[in-house]
């Protein structure tokens, strides 16, 4: 797996315990997985399992206690424009207009570009997320939550990173807005062939968006236990996806994992070499699935 686009090897995060002498607190350990170019991967787990820490390590904003991240054959050290981040709270600069927030990023990416080039590029991405006709000149405080997240997504896509990291981007949005922006995200993703790694709490969102869903056990001592492949063909549509025979199998599996097995598996070690997650695949011939080694499936 060393030749994957992105490879996470034996990541662990430990915090020294407040009273010296006793064991340090291990949030997660033995986290290893890889992501291929152009893949859309979601990660799900309960609060406190360290999802956001993993994302920050990928972004280069945080350092893991053990292990490392290799992207394109190079170790990730510190933040880089090759990895764009969309934060949960949007993290727009409030003193700049929506447009300026995007040009801020474009100027950082293409320092040699002229003003016109920067403007044209920024407008292109703002229009992609449906922000135009004057709304782009407003300050973030004058925009709704959905609009702000659109600006944040436009800013991240505008720098054309090799890897896009999304930290619960739709967590604070209402269901309708969330659906619209999910569709926009998918549309841009298909157009740009970006690799996306996204944290979410929402099972349906993960199935709708992802090629693969990583499941984390509860912290402390959390790990990525399973990698569930979502074989539902694209382009997916919100109303048809529920008709797909795999949809409820995947959904039930995820819900079951989050409700029960994430707790049961907490603190256990992976049986696979290097702590890699077990691959779970749902096909047309379910009955043969359990026969395969290292593949887990529940019989409905």
């Amino acid at each position: 797996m060393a030749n994957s686009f992105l490879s996470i090897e034996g990541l662990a995060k430990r915090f020294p315990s407040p009273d010296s002498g006793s064991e340090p607190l291990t949030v997660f350990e033995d986290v290893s997985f890889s992501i291929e170019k152009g893949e859309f991967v979601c990660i799900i787990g309960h609060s406190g399992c360290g999802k956001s820490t993993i994302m920050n390590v990928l972004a280069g904003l945080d350092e893991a206690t053990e292990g490392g991240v290799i992207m394109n054959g190079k170790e990730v050290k510190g933040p880089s424009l090759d990895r764009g981040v969309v934060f949960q709270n949007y993290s727009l600069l409030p003193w700049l207009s929506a447009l300026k927030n995007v040009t801020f990023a474009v100027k950082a990416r293409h320092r040699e570009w002229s003003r016109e080039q920067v403007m044209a590029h920024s407008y292109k991405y703002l229009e992609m997320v449906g922000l135009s006709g004057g709304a782009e000149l407003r300050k973030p405080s004058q925009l709704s939550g959905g609009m702000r997240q659109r600006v944040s997504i436009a800013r991240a896509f505008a720098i054309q990173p090799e890897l896009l990291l999304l930290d619960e981007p739709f967590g604070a949005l209402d269901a309708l807005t969330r659906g619209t922006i999910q569709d926009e995200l998918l549309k841009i993703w298909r157009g740009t062939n970006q690799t996306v790694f996204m944290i979410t709490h929402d099972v349906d969102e993960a199935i709708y968006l992802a090629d693969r869903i990583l499941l984390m056990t509860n912290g402390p001592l959390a790990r990525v236990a399973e990698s569930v492949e979502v074989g539902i063909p694209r382009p997916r549509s919100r109303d048809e996806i529920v008709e797909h025979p795999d949809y409820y199998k995947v959904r039930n599996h995820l819900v079951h994992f989050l409700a029960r097995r994430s707790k049961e598996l907490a603190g256990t070690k992976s049986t696979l070499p290097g702590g890699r997650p077990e691959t779970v695949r749902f096909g047309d011939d379910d009955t043969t699935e359990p026969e395969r080694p290292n593949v887990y499936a529940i019989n409905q």
Partner: protein
Amino acid sequence: MELFAKPLPLRLRSIILSVAILALTLTLWELSIPSQKDAGELTEYELLTGGGAPKAGIPPPSEVLSKAWEQLSDPFYDAGPNDKGIGIQIGYSLYRVLTGYFLAAAIAIPLGFLIGMSPLMYKALDPYIQILKPISPLAWMPLALFVIGDSQASAIFVIFICSIWPMLINTAFGVAGVRKDWINVARTHELGSIKTAFTVILPAAAPTILTGMRISIGIAWLVIVAAEMLVGGTGIGYYVWNEWNNLDLTSVIFSILMIGVVGMILDAIFGAVQRGVQYTE
């Protein structure tokens, strides 16, 4: 009842009330000034003790107003060291205040940045700031006069030392309080430290820094009056004290009002700048 059905806008009502308060105060003031007794009504003893001579008293507002008119119609005359127009005196004071103030800003803002960004510097410099901050700026005056040897420069130094603290503390506080998310935005966009300081930290901390600058200019204007009373020569503080020595209370009251007006204008200017850099999250 028709009148009360639709009350006047708040702004208008407040103006009416302000004018009423002013009129009432001026009337009471005018009426409370006792008129000089006629010499004919005085006893022989009173005449012998000088009771017939005009007594210095608080002037009525009408006199102050005519004084103001006289002074403001020719603010820049210069008839010798003890007789300069109010405009010239205020000009000297403003020159000292702004020189000392901007010198202070030139040191306080970069130093505040350093303290705000480095917990080490914050902890190392904090004891000095805590000890130096509560010292009355005028307490520095003797030392300043001795070391600098020039009364003009000493007055500027006193302004410098009094205006540096609010700017320093507010800059450090504002810089230290910049949201981690915004710093992370700068980091993920590979901005260098200088670029981050100017494009992210400075605008993020600007409202807090401007608050400090506004407090400082207010303090500087308070202190210049006292400083000029001590160093003498020129300036609005010297003017007040000189008119007191001349027992010209009309000029004293007029200059007190002018100090207030200039202070208000300075505050309004900084208030406008502050609104310019304000942002809502």
